[in-house]
């Protein structure tokens, strides 16, 4: 087919390209480079002087127990989210695809709805639900004759991270369900009919037809969830601020605290670079996969 090629060095092509390239360059790519460079310097928000410190900020991170605590909390959220969100999303999608006919659109719409609600609204509503004084959850627990955690659901360091996992699942399961459902619906019906003639039904059909058919989508869903788990910020920032006693501190909130509460911009940059490299690697995989999926 004959493609209408642009004349080489065409002025109009460059002009059409410019707005996107300038915005992405100025607000994403250049700041990313500056973050990497800045991670080798020591500077504060107000001072204009940058002092070169070599790898000191990274060495500081390596010996900072709070940095490692934040990383391990991120990993907890990543693993927990993959299990709850991709797992839960896959179960719901499988049921809605082949198990249920009546009402499936209504279910789908409601389960997906939290995805469009701002994480700030989600955070505050759940803070009300879990509130030790006015929260409905405590009222239910007490009505059942049980005693709620004395420090509150979000105030008890032993359970606060689990609560965040629950809230994140509440918001994101619908997204994964939709993604996986789209994958399921792309599997041709004939495959199931042919397998059924060969005696493969139910779980057997699921294992030999459904799973291979959505493998790429499942990997994509997992990647998206893993990236989201490393990037988590709004929910933690609003509900616990990283507390109690850093029990829910994550990379995003700790970086924010170091930068904007303590003014350690260089150190914050070093931790930001750890997040940047992690997210960039996973994001690169995601773009490659989503083109294939």
């Amino acid at each position: 087919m004959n493609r209408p090629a642009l004349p080489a060095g065409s002025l109009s092509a460059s002009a059409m390209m410019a707005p996107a390239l300038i915005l992405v360059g100025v607000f994403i790519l250049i700041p990313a480079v500056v973050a990497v460079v800045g991670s080798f310097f020591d500077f504060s928000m107000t001072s204009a002087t940058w002092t070169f410190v070599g790898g000191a900020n990274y060495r500081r991170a390596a010996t900072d127990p709070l940095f490692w605590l934040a990383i391990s909390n991120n990993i907890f959220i990543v693993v927990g989210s993959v299990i709850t969100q991709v797992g839960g999303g896959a179960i719901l999608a499988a049921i809605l695809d082949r198990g249920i006919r009546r009402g499936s659109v209504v279910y789908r719409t409601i389960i997906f709805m939290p995805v469009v609600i701002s994480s700030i609204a989600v955070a505050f509503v759940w803070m009300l639900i879990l509130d030790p004084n006015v929260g409905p959850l405590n009222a239910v627990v007490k009505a059942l004759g049980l005693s709620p955690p004395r420090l509150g659901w979000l105030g008890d360091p032993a359970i606060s991270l689990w609560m965040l996992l629950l809230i994140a699942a509440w918001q994101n399961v619908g997204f994964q369900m939709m993604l996986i459902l789209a994958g399921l619906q792309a599997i041709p019906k004939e495959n199931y009919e042919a397998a059924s003639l060969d005696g493969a039904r139910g779980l057997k059909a699921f294992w030999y037809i459904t799973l291979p058919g959505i493998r790429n989508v499942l990997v994509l869903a997992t990647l998206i969830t893993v990236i989201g788990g490393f990037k988590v910020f709004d929910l933690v920032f609003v509900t616990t601020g990283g507390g109690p006693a850093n029990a829910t501190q994550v990379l995003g909130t700790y970086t924010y605290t170091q930068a904007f509460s303590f003014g350690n911009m260089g150190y914050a940059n070093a931790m930001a670079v750890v997040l940047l490299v992690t997210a960039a690697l996973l994001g690169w995989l995601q773009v490659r996969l989503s083109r294939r999926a």
Partner: protein
Amino acid sequence: MTPRSRTVAIGLHAIVSLWTLFVLLPVFVMVISAFKSQAELFTRPLSLPKQFSFAAFERAWGIGISGFLVNSLLVTALSVLIILLASSLAAYVLARSERPVMRWVYVAIVAGFAVPLQSVMVPLYQLVSSAGLLNSRLAIALPYAAYGIPFTTMLFYTFFLEFPRELEEAARLDGCGRIEVFFRIVLPLSGPAIASGAIFQAVFNWNEFILALLMLTRAEVRTLPVGIYGLTGQYSADWPALMAGLAIATVPLIIIFLLAQRHFVRSLAGLGK
């Protein structure tokens, strides 16, 4: 239907219904709490309000929600407009050009997709503050636009690859320039891509928190999420007003989502939030 498959069907319905109920409960709590009085919230946390009162909505509106709403509308509309225009133009050139350099341009734009906002908050804050653009609702639309462009460009790129080139060629034979072809032929026929991109970015920018937290420090210029967050420091005990404010911020999105579900879901596939 055999008895066994009937049991299975009931079990499957039960699983899905339970999760659906779990999803609805917090939304329900938000709405009924907004209609309660503060005293009622304390004394009867589980029940419906005795009488539906709009007092909490009035308080929320009075302490700043009205202004946040206007700011959110302004910032969202402006950023979505810039995103659609910049992304469609760029994607069109990328989809039609055969120059090898364009591959690198595509990679550069898509690379922006992999950079989390949290990892550049320090340089971004310094950039914006040294440019004197803190607390500007117009200026914040620019980084918002930047973060929407990579995904939207990919969306338009895929769409333009399948766009029938015959139409463009005919227009060019009639003497139309490239930009003219784009605005008069291609863009008017790009409805589905525009709808997907617009609704998705509108939801994202309406809800955005981190950039707004960093850049909009004065209450008068704040958007809904960061505005409501700022209010909770001052009015911490007023749960009903807080829930009313959140309902005002949330309900428009839920309505838009219900109306335009199809477009929204279609644009989700390639995204990591």
